[in-house]
């Protein structure tokens, strides 16, 4: 629980860190030069966490049982991340430079998750709102998402991520209006969706 509820200042970790790094942090910066375990930035409200290596599951999530996920701030993971990142996320940004596991953005209410690499699947299950961008391979899109358009790029804060992307809306199970962007070039198996446009 390094950086638990921190409000300002900087922590630099030369090496790996354990679970619940930066839990509930409101401000300041944590830089990990290595890997971190699960629940990085869980329930964080502000500030920035940067991890040069990989992270476990539940990046920027809520506690087990709680619906209070990350509410603000940024988490940048330069390596891979585990399952259920951004669970119950309400705002802020999670960026994973390599691959992510199952269920990114599960129960998500708002905010943005960017996965520059591949995703194991089931992205955005039960999401209500917010944005998930998968730039790599996604095995399939949940049947409770509908395609609404093809976009040339996606705006994340000030930055534009180049596409083209299939844009899906869901999760219909929650009557959600979340947006799931999946890179067209890396996912030819999703081309069959184009006939619904």
């Amino acid at each position, binding site marked *: 629980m390094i950086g638990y509820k921190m409000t300002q200042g900087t922590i630099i970790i030369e090496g790996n860190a354990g679970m619940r790094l930066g839990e509930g942090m409101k401000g300041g910066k944590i830089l990990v030069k290595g890997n971190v375990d699960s629940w990085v930035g869980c329930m964080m409200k502000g500030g920035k966490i940067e991890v040069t290596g990989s992270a476990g599951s539940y990046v920027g999530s*809520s*506690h*087990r*049982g*709680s619906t*209070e996920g990350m509410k603000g701030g940024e988490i940048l993971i330069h390596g891979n991340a585990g399952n259920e990142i951004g669970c119950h996320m309400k705002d802020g940004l999670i960026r994973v430079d390599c691959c992510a596991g199952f269920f990114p953005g599960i129960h998500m209410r708002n905010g943005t998750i960017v996965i520059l690499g591949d995703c194991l699947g089931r992205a955005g299950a039960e999401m209500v709102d917010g944005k998930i961008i998968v730039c790599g391979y996604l095995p399939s899109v949940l049947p409770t998402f509908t395609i609404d358009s093809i976009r040339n790029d996606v705006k994340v804060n000030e930055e534009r991520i180049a596409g083209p992307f299939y844009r899906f809306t869901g999760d219909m199970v929650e009557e959600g209006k979340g947006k799931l962007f999946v890179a067209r070039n890396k996912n030819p198996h999703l081309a069959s969706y184009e006939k619904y446009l």
Partner: protein
Amino acid sequence: MALLVKNGYVYDPLNNVKGEIMDICIENGKIVEKIDEKKAHIIDASNMVVMPGGIDIHTHIAGSEVNAGRLLRPEDHYDDVETKTAITRSGVGHSVPSTFTTGYRYSRMGYTTICNPSMPPLEARHTHEELDDTPMVDKATFPLLGDWWFVLELLQKSLLRECAIHVAWLISATKGYAIKLVNPGGVESWGFGMNVKNLDDPVPNFGITPREIIRGLCKVNHVLNLPHTIHVHTNQLGKPGNYLITLETMKCVEDLAFEKKPSIHITHCQFSSFKGDDWGSIKSGAEEIAKYVNGHSHVTIDMGQVVFTETTTMTADGPWQYTLHELSGNKWVNHDVETETAAGIVPFTYKRKSLVYATMWSIGLELALLIKDPWKVYLTTDHPNAAPFTTYPKIISWLMSKKARGVMLNKINKKAKKRSLLPSIDREYDLFEIAIITRAGQAKALGMKNKGHLGHNADADIAIYDLNPKNTDFSKDYRIVRRAFEKSVFTIKDGEIVAKNGTIIKPVVGRTMWTDIETTSFTMASSYSETLKDLKKRFRDYWTIELDNYFVPEKYLKSSEPMPIKPEV
């Protein structure tokens, strides 16, 4: 060991002691008239308040429902942990604490006896296992009988004596203490997706009405001579306009009071005192309820006071819990306990700025302040439904200080503040009255003769608080009151100092009290073997477990304290 508590300001309402400086002598776990001062361990209680140990008449602390609440809410425990010490166990707290933590926290506040008010009979074994693991306090538990099939069926056929035999059997089978009714008839109806709307709305398949169930069990309670009255969670609880059905419920047993003794206890009455047609027009019905209670001697109530916090609601009232789930959108558990009752659990946050919750906060206090006789109203939060029991000190400070109430009134929803009756109430409780609503009155209502007082031969359960009534203005210094009741200086259980300055220094098991109904008059009757045969057959047909596994034997309890009762028949 002998103990001598010297020079404290003693508040012992059952013996009419109102803050006099007195010594209390203790020997062999009991309060005695005199002891040899040289041989006794002396506690100097000068400038402190001495009261009997606190008693809680209604707190959900054990059993399958509470445990399901623990499972449902890992997030509830996360930031509130109890670390292990050389003598106490670790645990987790907040709204549904683990068993050991529950015992420790009550003891630290000076409580020594607590009642678990809703036990599905089928879950009695589980409940007793958890009660056994709730240390520091004596315990009692009330089986849910208002929707038990035998009760519905026998009362519908007007077989009162048969019903009494079955209830006596059930109480001894579950090692229960009193008869609990939750939304009588409504819980059974909920099994068919329905609820009862008024006292004369028949229950599907049984045709019996809530009025008949309440009256029937009230009569059974009298026949069996149980120490407590029927303990009732009213129909339509938590719905706007329900104060009318609450008044009806109290009226419907008016003629069943004997010797001016109470015949009904309306529990967490706050939830049953709503006026208005819907959530937008919700208003307090406390004035009407208080007026009725003031005019009648057959009713007692407990508050069910809301405190603004995050908590967990849990009752046997399945339909009400469904409503709460719909209102809050929160996760929930709903469970049908076979042929007996039901249960529901929903996490809940009472927000100050909400009209409804702020009104509910006001209603609880209005009830306690408008009911003139403190022997008729007891301090509870229906833990954890309206707030965790650890908020009691805050409630005490609201009752003792108009200023403390004013501070909160300024923070709540404006409309609720405008509708609240609190600004017009000047009454402030004194320590004698606080001692009544937190121990003496509860002991009296529960018929626990050795509890709630400091007279000769009472159980030596005592709480000593760091509060000097001679130089404290409770009305102004309400924070001092709150702090004093949060941590007792000493908690004495059965004559031993178990907690000191908020730290547990001696863990004790605590006994489980149950009513041991003398049933020879029943068992001698020729019809008894028929009854047993019928019970066995019914269990085979309708319950998932056999009759023989249902019965909790006395030796199953870690520390059993049967209370012998002679029925009137």
